């Protein structure tokens, strides 16, 4: 090959590198023109995002993706799910590989301020706990001195674990795995005495054990884990849509609008309900979506409470109580700012 060919080759390459300058088109327009929402989810976490035998995804996080697709594209099925490990997830948002990350991700200050990310809100208030074998006879996390602990790589869990043991003057040995399933396998094969993770995940993982009755979740909750969707920083229009999809989801429950009664509710005379459902308001259009965006949400996945009960609550094998995740009117922390 002649040297001059090389020069031309490098010139072309460089031109490509230059062209890869920051994209300026908004995510909202990109999603609309693509006709598909790309949503980052957990590889497999019962109740939050897990594929069934036919490859259909379901869970609380998946419902948020569906609701968002219904709002932006009018069809909850127009979602491409990208399963991500804990290690990959934040980079996937940063690089623009996904439009939104709905993957039980803890909202922390460093993630929010230094990684070029924005947390949309909180759709599940969680806390870190411990799962142990009943045979060990442990009743409290304070008795875990010297234990081997299986933990998932790249999570806030790893840091809380270190803090908790240090604060209580205890020693531990952490065995770090890449995926939830490997972590569970380590626990199941007795490599570790304890498995630590967010409480919601512990129940899901326990249900996957060959004999779930032999393991028990300890009462201590050692951290705050507010979980919520994440988008890239610097795209306010998209941030607004994702955020108000979440808030409308909460407000639908508060207003008593369900997937079943939405038809009657559209005829309601209650001004709050009329505004929320876009009967006599143009709030949706101002945001760049349809005025009836809340109707699209509730028709797609029901209100937040319905989705919660179906995926992780009474209607699911996990049987998690609403607790902190009840509406603020019922003693919980779920609170949607007013739609007006």
């Amino acid at each position, binding site marked *: 090959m002649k*040297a*001059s060919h*090389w*020069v031309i080759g*490098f*010139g072309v*390459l*460089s031109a490509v*590198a*230059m062209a*890869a*300058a*920051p994209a300026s088109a908004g995510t909202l327009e990109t999603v609309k023109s693509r006709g598909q929402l790309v949503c980052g989810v957990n590889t497999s976490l019962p109740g939050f995002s897990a594929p069934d035998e036919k490859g259909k995804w379901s869970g609380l996080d998946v419902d948020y993706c569906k609701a968002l697709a219904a709002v932006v594209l009018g069809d909850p099925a127009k979602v491409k799910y990208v399963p991500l490990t*804990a*290690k990959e997830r*934040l*980079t996937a948002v*940063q690089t623009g590989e996904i439009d939104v990350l709905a993957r039980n991700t803890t909202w922390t200050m*460093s*993630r929010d301020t*230094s*990684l*070029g990310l924005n947390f949309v809100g909180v759709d599940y208030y969680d806390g870190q706990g411990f799962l142990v074998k009943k045979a*060990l006879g442990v009743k409290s996390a304070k008795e*875990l*001195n*010297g*234990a*081997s602990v299986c933990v998932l*790589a*790249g*999570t806030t869990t*790893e*840091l809380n*674990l*270190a*803090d908790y*043991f*240090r604060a209580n003057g205890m020693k*531990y*040995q*952490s*065995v*770090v*795995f*890449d995926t939830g399933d*490997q972590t569970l*396998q*380590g626990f199941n*094969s*007795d*490599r570790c*005495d304890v498995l630590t993770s967010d409480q919601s995940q512990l129940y899901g993982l326990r249900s996957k054990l060959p004999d779930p009755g032999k393991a028990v979740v300890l009462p201590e909750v050692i951290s705050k884990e507010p979980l919520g969707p994440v988008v*890239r*920083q*610097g795209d306010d229009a998209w941030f607004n849509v994702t955020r108000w999809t979440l808030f409308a989801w909460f407000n639908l429950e508060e207003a008593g609008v369900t997937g079943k009664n939405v038809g009657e509710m559209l005829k309601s005379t209650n001004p709050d309900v009329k505004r929320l459902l876009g009967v006599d308001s143009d709030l949706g259009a101002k945001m760049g979506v349809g005025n009836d965006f809340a109707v699209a949400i509730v028709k797609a996945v029901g209100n937040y409470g319905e989705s919660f009960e179906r995926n992780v609550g009474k209607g699911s094998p996990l049987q998690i109580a609403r607790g902190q995740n009840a509406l603020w009117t019922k003693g919980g922390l779920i609170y949607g700012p007013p739609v007006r």
Partner: protein
Amino acid sequence: MQPTRTIKPWNDPKIRALVFQAAVIAAVLWLAVTLFRNTLLNMEHRNIQTGFGFLGQTAGFGILFSLIPYDESYSYGRTFFVGLLNTVLVSGLGIVTATLLGFLAGISRLSRNWLVARLAEVYVEIFRNVPLLLQIFFWYFAVLQTLPAPRRSLNFHDLVFLSKRGLYVPAPVFGPGMEWVGLALLAALIAVWRLSRWETRRREATGQIFPFWRVAAALAIGAPGLVFLLAGAPMTWSVPALRGFNFAGGGVLLPELVALWFALTVYTGTFIAEIVRSGIQAVSHGQTEAAAALGLKRGQIIRLVVLPQALRVIIPPLTSQYLNLAKNSSLATAIGYPDLVNVFMGTTLNQTGQAVEVVAMTMSVYLTISLVISLAMNGYNKRVALKER
């Protein structure tokens, strides 16, 4: 007189070559600078913080196993070295054992003993055709499933314990004065090295045999031993004991390390075996016959005549197997062995979010390790290469 023909500069091949080379270098540099600046610009646009300042911050997470002192209060920079040393450890161990196993299997495949040759063949064909990641999982869970839980560990005289948590053995604890023993050992080793050179020269010059190994052993063991006794035996043993959930005290060989080490050894050993076999078969059969005619035994023929010549063929492909092994060790992350990829590119990357910096550092480490191995092996290759006289 003929008129001197002047060549125009753009027709002078030398000048043309120089110009083109300069242009290519300039283009490459420009490309690199552009890529670098573009990356920085993109990250700034996305409000991602850059720089290596994070290396000084407190890490705040635990690591299963470390060759240097480490706990949660050390920095992210320290986690880099913990991971790096763990990678070097498993690669080093793997290279040594894979070489031994590979040479053994490679020579066995050419054995006259039918059973030995077939066994070596079966080993090679099975283990080089199964993906390495599967083998790592297999050994890891095979080890974990068969061994007992820590409270029911296999107990050897209350000194050595074997369980799912690893092999716990007594470990020496050094007291003050031990550094003199270390110095004595170092001095003895230097003396042995000088002795070996003197012995070789004398034997080559005079043909006289000197009882080298006996003297060397006496020096290497005697000198440090004497200093050890003079210093008042400054060493005690820390014996592992079951306290609560796990063993405390002593040294431990973790199942993660064993599984990874074993898998890397067995997998790479098959490739080395084939390289060794091809190297031996490349040595002309006349050499073997000539050596046999001189009355050498079969073992001596292999050791003194065939292998030294085969090494010339073996070393270059062997080097690339070593490089593969070092790079394959990054699969450690699948079973939780805290190597560089698991610790630094896993947890540290996630806690700090500094993807570009962390990935660049990790990649340059593997590049450096590979180049060092390559350099050492090339040096060795020069020594064993055929010297034309």
